[in-house]
């Protein structure tokens, strides 16, 4: 049947040449017009909607020397609404997917939640509670807002210090400052000091400028200036305990912990003075080299 019509097509084409051709062109014109018209309607709809650009977060230079608490609070509000992406979820009912922070008294709420028996964190004040909620949201999950099926033990909120949000410590402080001041409370976070600023600008600097990883344990000890406080050759006390024979006293895991989290266990008679940020600074390789080096320091 179709074969027949193919044959028809050919005779049609040759015999009524002009007629078919013209009609074909007309049809083409009509459908092109129709299609383009429809496309333009869709384009028009998009141009009638609000035109908003989703800017990528831009790293801003903050002059910390001249920073006032008001600036810091304003910075926190800006972070809360933009880079922090908090308002994606924390917004008024019925649209919110998390408690409406902007609409409630965070100071009173923090106190209430810290007193709740379901609270699993360690902090005691509003500042600590807000910071903890940002970096470890599951420490306290507000009733009904937990992950489905977790019975409000697990929060769907991402840790804001991790990708993709990646707020720095200073930025989290700013957000805390904003949340504290918003309800007329006292702001307890400290303004970042200019020294802190130096550290902040150094930390996220491009990979090229970061000091090269140490090649061996001795280099690593120099790089992190361990021997400024710890003697490596005897048991004398400089600032911290001497490390000769530390391998006898402590296991590899204990040494590792002492470096990563120095304040967890403090040798009797010492003040907690050791920097707690080696975990952020050392590479795994460096840490392991140091640990191995110290474990082998049996005498």
């Amino acid at each position: 049947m179709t074969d027949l019509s193919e044959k028809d097509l050919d005779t049609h084409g040759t015999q009524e040449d002009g007629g078919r051709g013209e009609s074909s062109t007309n049809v083409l014109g009509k459908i092109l017009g129709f299609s383009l018209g429809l496309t333009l309607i869709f384009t028009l709809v998009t141009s009638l909607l609000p035109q908003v650009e989703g800017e990528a977060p831009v790293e801003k230079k903050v002059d910390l020397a001249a920073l006032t608490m008001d600036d810091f609070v304003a910075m926190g509000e800006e972070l809360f609404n933009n880079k922090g992406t908090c308002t994606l979820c924390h917004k008024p009912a019925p649209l919110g997917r998390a408690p409406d922070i902007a609409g409630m008294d965070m100071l009173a709420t923090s106190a209430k939640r810290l007193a709740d028996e379901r609270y699993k964190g360690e902090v005691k004040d509003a500042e600590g509670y807000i910071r903890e909620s940002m970096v470890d949201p599951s420490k306290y999950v507000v009733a009904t807002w937990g992950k489905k099926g977790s019975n409000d033990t697990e929060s769907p909120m991402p840790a804001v210090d991790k990708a993709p949000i990646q707020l720095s410590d200073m930025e989290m402080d700013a957000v805390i400052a904003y949340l504290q001041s918003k309800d007329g409370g006292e702001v307890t976070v400290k303004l970042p000091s200019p020294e802190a600023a130096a550290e902040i600008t150094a930390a996220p600097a491009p990979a090229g400028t970061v000091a090269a990883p140490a090649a061996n344990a001795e280099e690593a000890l120099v790089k992190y200036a361990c021997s400024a406080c710890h003697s490596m050759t005897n048991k004398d006390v400089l600032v911290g305990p001497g490390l000769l024979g530390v391998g006898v006293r402590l296991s590899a895991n204990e040494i590792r912990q002492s470096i990563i989290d120095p304040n967890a266990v403090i040798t009797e008679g010492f003040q907690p003075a050791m920097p707690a940020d080696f975990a952020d600074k050392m590479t795994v390789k460096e840490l392991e080299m140091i640990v191995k080096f110290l474990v082998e320091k049996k005498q």
Partner: protein
Amino acid sequence: MYHKNKSVSAALRSFLGRMGILFLLMFVFGSTSTAHAAGQGASTDDVKQRIAPLGRVAIEGQKFIEVEPIVSAEDTVEPMAAPRPSRLDYPNIGVSSRAVVWILAQMHLFFGALVLAVPLFVLVIELMGVKTGDERYDAMAYEFMKISLTGFSITAIFGGSLALALFVLYPDFMAYMMHVFGAQWLVYAGIFFLESFFLYTYYYGWNAMRYGNLKWLHLTLGLLLNGAGMTIMVLSNSWATFMMAPSGVNEVGVVIGDIWEVMKGPLWNPINLHRFIANIAFGGAVVGAYAAFKFLSTRDPVKRAHYDWMGYTSNFIAILAFLPLPFAGYWLMAEIYAYSQQMGITAMGGILAWLFIVQAVLIGTILLAGNFYLWSGMSRTEGSVRYQPLIKYIALVLVVCFLIWVTPHTLILSASEIAELGGSHHHILGPLGIMPAKNIAVNLMLVVTFLSFQIYRRSDKVATVSWVKAGNALLVAIYMVAIVNIVFLGVYYGYFTNTVYKVGSSVAQVTSTLLVIITGIVIDSLMYKNAKTLPSHWGRIPDRSQYALFALPIAFTWLMGLMGYVRSSVKTHWHVYTVMKDNSPDNFIPTIGYAGNMITIVTVLFLLFVLFMFWVANLGATTQPKPVIAGEGGVG
């Protein structure tokens, strides 16, 4: 000026470098693949060792302290981690790199979708021809293949251009992707050879393997063609889903899993399913336009009958594949939320959310066009009079639901905007703008579209089974209860309970819709098993109905472009979400108006290329008449 020079020379250098990689890829097949695999294996072990957990540290009487593997900035200087290009590392060619890639990628995807889908339903139609012994099916299947054949070359051309553009414009990103996917790229290239082999043997062997056992060999070739096509699709889908939800790499992008773990990210299968179904709908819509064009440009009743039937079949394929698409989309969105709540909200509640209003307009257009075509088609049969009165109610439901669906939902961008608007949503339109109302509307539209479809299918038949009354009563009851249930679920859980139940009830809504579709198909297929068929007249359909067949592909094409914009934009300022930042000048989400213009550009381009494809297909069937020598006269 200095920068410009520098970037041009950098572009040239990286271009040459990447070209080198490309040629290596293409020609030094075996040796590179083994060398690469070996190299990768060794370095993977190294990485595993380096980032292995440090052991558990505990103090007596205290809990274990989980020590996270620490990865510091230093690691990024190693080639293993995701690169962190600065803005100057992106070549500046004077026009937006993103726009170039956008157009090339979209064209590649349009044609790719088309040529993946057509062989799929061609195979089914061919099989139907074998089963029914009706030669018309076979002829139509062959014609579908014929008109899309050039599409394969066009897909490859745009694919190659896209790859080149990416290598030139995003060298660091592509270097990283090449590194992560490694030998998978070679497998991908290899399957192209298979695809071409099966394509040409399938198409050119059509008439050589026409009957008997050879026909089954031909069908097998078709199956293998589809197998190769599907493999190509799922492989390339894995790149897109890796960019959205990386797996098999650690937080700085160091590959820690094997290629399977890299591919099998949380969004891979949802995207595979979604694209698979959408391709069929899209392919059906495009070939339907061809049939409509042929129908309109002839007055020959035989050919009109043929192309009417072909247009009807295409529309049938498109709408049938379109109906389950929202459910696949729902699964995809649910997986996105499960992967990252933030990403989900960026899509549905952030600045991108406005575009779901455009999506509503497009899907509304598709549903209205599909329904309109079905109603027009009822003029082909004499038995359709019975169902005519229903049409106005279906039309009413469609229009009302459509309006509810496009009611803007006031989306909150910032606290200042809330203040400006004086509340979180509009006082009157508000309740209609939020999700439950839209869910009700969408589900009702799907239900009544299925109803259109069902009465169309019934219109040329008279059931002869004894339980006609009971079956019809059950069907009417199912429709009515389903509609009431969908409204009840939306209103009650959507407005009077909490969010969790609100979200959960939308699943119950789509299940209700599915139940209607399934019971409808089951009851009708049993009831009309040995039904009396009324005469139906192909070609007896008003010309204006054919415009629905043009509206469908235009809306589908535009919709694909739009959803591609969302899918890609939810990554925000990341090339690979959370792993590799996008520092290019185009790392922001463009406005919806800009996106609309881009989508229109690609849609029009696609339209032109499709016209070319159809024109080439018809060129093969045309023979120039022998020139008539003056004075001789005679036949042409």
